């Protein structure tokens, strides 16, 4: 047990990385590949939970890769800021796997299942790696691991357009990570170090140079591309729409969240609050972009007829809320952002899972094909409605917890127009969710449409698990709010 505890940070990344090639070898036994992947994701979740426990009990953990002492060696650094994100990733991996069995069997060619699950594990491993590592170059490497795996996963969608959207994501994603790499390179030139903690200590000496300001700009733009901040979100709607359903669930809940975490780490921990917000006024850049990012994609979402695409646009808007919290540059705003990482992951994953149930039975989720579906699939639609309420931010759901804290942060900063704006944009979410509800509950099924049955249990159970989580954590907010508070305080404090 001591051995296990001691190596937890490494295991977090090594487990999925070890399982990926093994699963790849199971190409002839798709079910076995699925079982092995599921086992791995649950073990990874176990490791995350143990890490949370260790950090809460004993404080931050530093793990020296290969026994090389940082800043020379690569350090894995676990503190209250990243345990939240680690927990989100491994939880979403663990919940989406039981769901994957039926959904993937229907949507992905059987011969490719081994490769599919191997790529899924690599994406998982990459995202966990980005979050846990304390080394700037390592962040870039893991970004590429997770991104390359996601491109492959998206391209495996049934629709031919999946390949095109994966390619679009590849081009945009590569530009993003290249910018990230240029930024890291500039910091390395000026400080001679890649360790994040060491960078935080050495950057103040050279802060006042053009190189460091350029590095900061490259980092922020590059990461913004990865987290789909408006107007750099163009890859996201297509990628989410045409990816296999299970991948949409997983990526929507994790990929952009991890990029947001990296942004927070860079601007708060590495460069520090003073440099980012007082010297460079990052808040003035992020706030308008976040507000436009909430407004425009929400309006675009209203006009979508493909519900998966509608929710993809809604994801861009939700990223806007998270960035808005950051742009307040206060502990409360930051806390709202971090808690929204969790809340949005749960909510959006539940919504996409409900859609995946409908895709499983109906074959598509355009508005007209969903007409009258609620009578045939009552449980699925009930989950969709409840999670939809959470997306809007109705009290007693997790969505409300975020909106409430964002509102408090806006008022605390004296930004009452932003507070009004927040309330107004919730209406936009109401409109697009209502469109789905109207089609599903109030319209009659189209003439000649094949009646369908309720989705199978293996799809319904994970969907409802997440839906119940939306409600449970909306009522008993202590766990996510407590973790987010610790994370926000850690980030505001910087590494020093």
């Amino acid at each position, binding site marked *: 047990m001591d051995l296990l505890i001691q190596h937890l940070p*490494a295991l977090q990344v090594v487990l999925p990385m070890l399982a990926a090639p093994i699963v790849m070898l199971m190409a002839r036994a798709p079910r076995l590949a699925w079982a092995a992947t599921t086992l791995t994701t649950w073990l990874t979740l176990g490791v995350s939970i143990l890490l949370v426990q260790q950090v809460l009990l004993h404080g931050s953990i530093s793990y020296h890769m*290969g026994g090389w002492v940082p800043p020379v060696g690569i350090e894995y650094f676990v503190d209250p800021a990243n345990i939240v994100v680690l927990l989100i990733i491994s939880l979403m991996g663990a919940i989406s796997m039981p769901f994957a069995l039926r959904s993937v069997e229907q949507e992905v060619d059987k011969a490719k299942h081994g490769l599919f699950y191997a790529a899924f594990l690599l994406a998982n491993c990459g995202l966990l790696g980005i979050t846990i590592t304390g080394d700037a170059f390592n962040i870039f490497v893991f970004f590429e691991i997770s991104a390359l795996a996601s491109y492959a996963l998206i391209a495996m969608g049934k629709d031919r357009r999946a390949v095109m959207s994966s390619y679009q994501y590849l081009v945009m994603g590569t530009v993003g990570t290249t910018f990230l790499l240029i930024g890291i390179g500039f910091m390395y030139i000026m400080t001679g170090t890649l360790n994040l903690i060491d960078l935080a200590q050495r950057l103040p000496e050279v802060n006042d140079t053009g190189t460091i300001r350029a590095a900061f700009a490259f980092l922020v733009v590059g990461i913004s591309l990865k987290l789909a901040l408006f107007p750099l979100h163009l890859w996201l709607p297509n990628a989410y729409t045409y990816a296999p359903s299970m991948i949409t669930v997983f990526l929507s809940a994790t990929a952009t969240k991890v990029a947001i975490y990296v942004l927070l780490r860079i601007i708060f921990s590495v460069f520090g609050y003073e440099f980012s917000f007082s010297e460079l006024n990052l808040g003035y850049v992020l706030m308008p972009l976040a507000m436009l990012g909430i407004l425009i994609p929400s309006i675009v979402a209203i006009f979508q007829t493909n519900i998966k695409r509608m929710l993809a646009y809604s994801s861009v808007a939700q990223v806007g809320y998270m960035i808005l919290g950051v742009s307040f540059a206060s502990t409360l705003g930051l806390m709202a952002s971090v808690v929204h990482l969790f809340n949005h992951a749960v909510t959006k994953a539940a919504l996409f899972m409900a859609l995946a149930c409908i895709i499983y039975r109906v074959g598509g989720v355009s508005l007209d094909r969903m007409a009258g579906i609620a009578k045939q699939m009552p449980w699925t639609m009930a989950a969709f409605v409840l999670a939809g309420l959470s997306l809007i931010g109705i009290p007693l759901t997790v969505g409300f917890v975020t909106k409430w804290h964002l509102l408090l942060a806006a008022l605390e900063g004296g930004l009452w127009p932003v507070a009004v704006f927040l309330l107004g944009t919730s209406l936009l979410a109401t409109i697009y969710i209502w469109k789905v509800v109207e089609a599903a509950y109030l319209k009659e099924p189209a003439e000649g449409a094949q009646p369908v049955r309720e989705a199978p249990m293996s799809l319904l159970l994970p969907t409802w698990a997440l839906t119940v989580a939306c409600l449970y954590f909306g009522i008993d907010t202590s766990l996510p709010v407590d973790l987010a508070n610790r994370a926000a305080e850690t980030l505001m404090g910087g590494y020093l």
Partner: protein
Amino acid sequence: MNQYVVLRVITKLMIPVILLYGLYIQFHGEYSPGGGFQAGIIFAAGFVIYSLIYGLDKAQEAISPEAAHILAALGVLLYIGIGIASFFLGGNFLEYKVLLPDDHAGETFGIIGIELGVGITVATVALTLFYSFAGRERD
């Protein structure tokens, strides 16, 4: 291109040299420029030139696409296996010096081992990429 004698003979002469050079880069990686990645690409280039001259079928007789797949996975497993082995011998992940009683020997052993894993995976993945492009039927 089977009918060009000059190409066939020159290729046959060059392939052993290419493969040998790949192995040289592989095993000198830890104290001179090179390592598993470069070596793997050079090694795969040997197979690529063979299949360009003698045909894809002949190259796939030497290493079939399935074999390339399996080797690619085994290379990664070798890398991670060495990393995990150092857990159980009292070190951190990839801490090579615990692998053998002598620290220095352990480090050399570890780095050669993981570079070999990298080399195998890179060579077979490069080959798989080549196979999948070369094996495409015209639409």
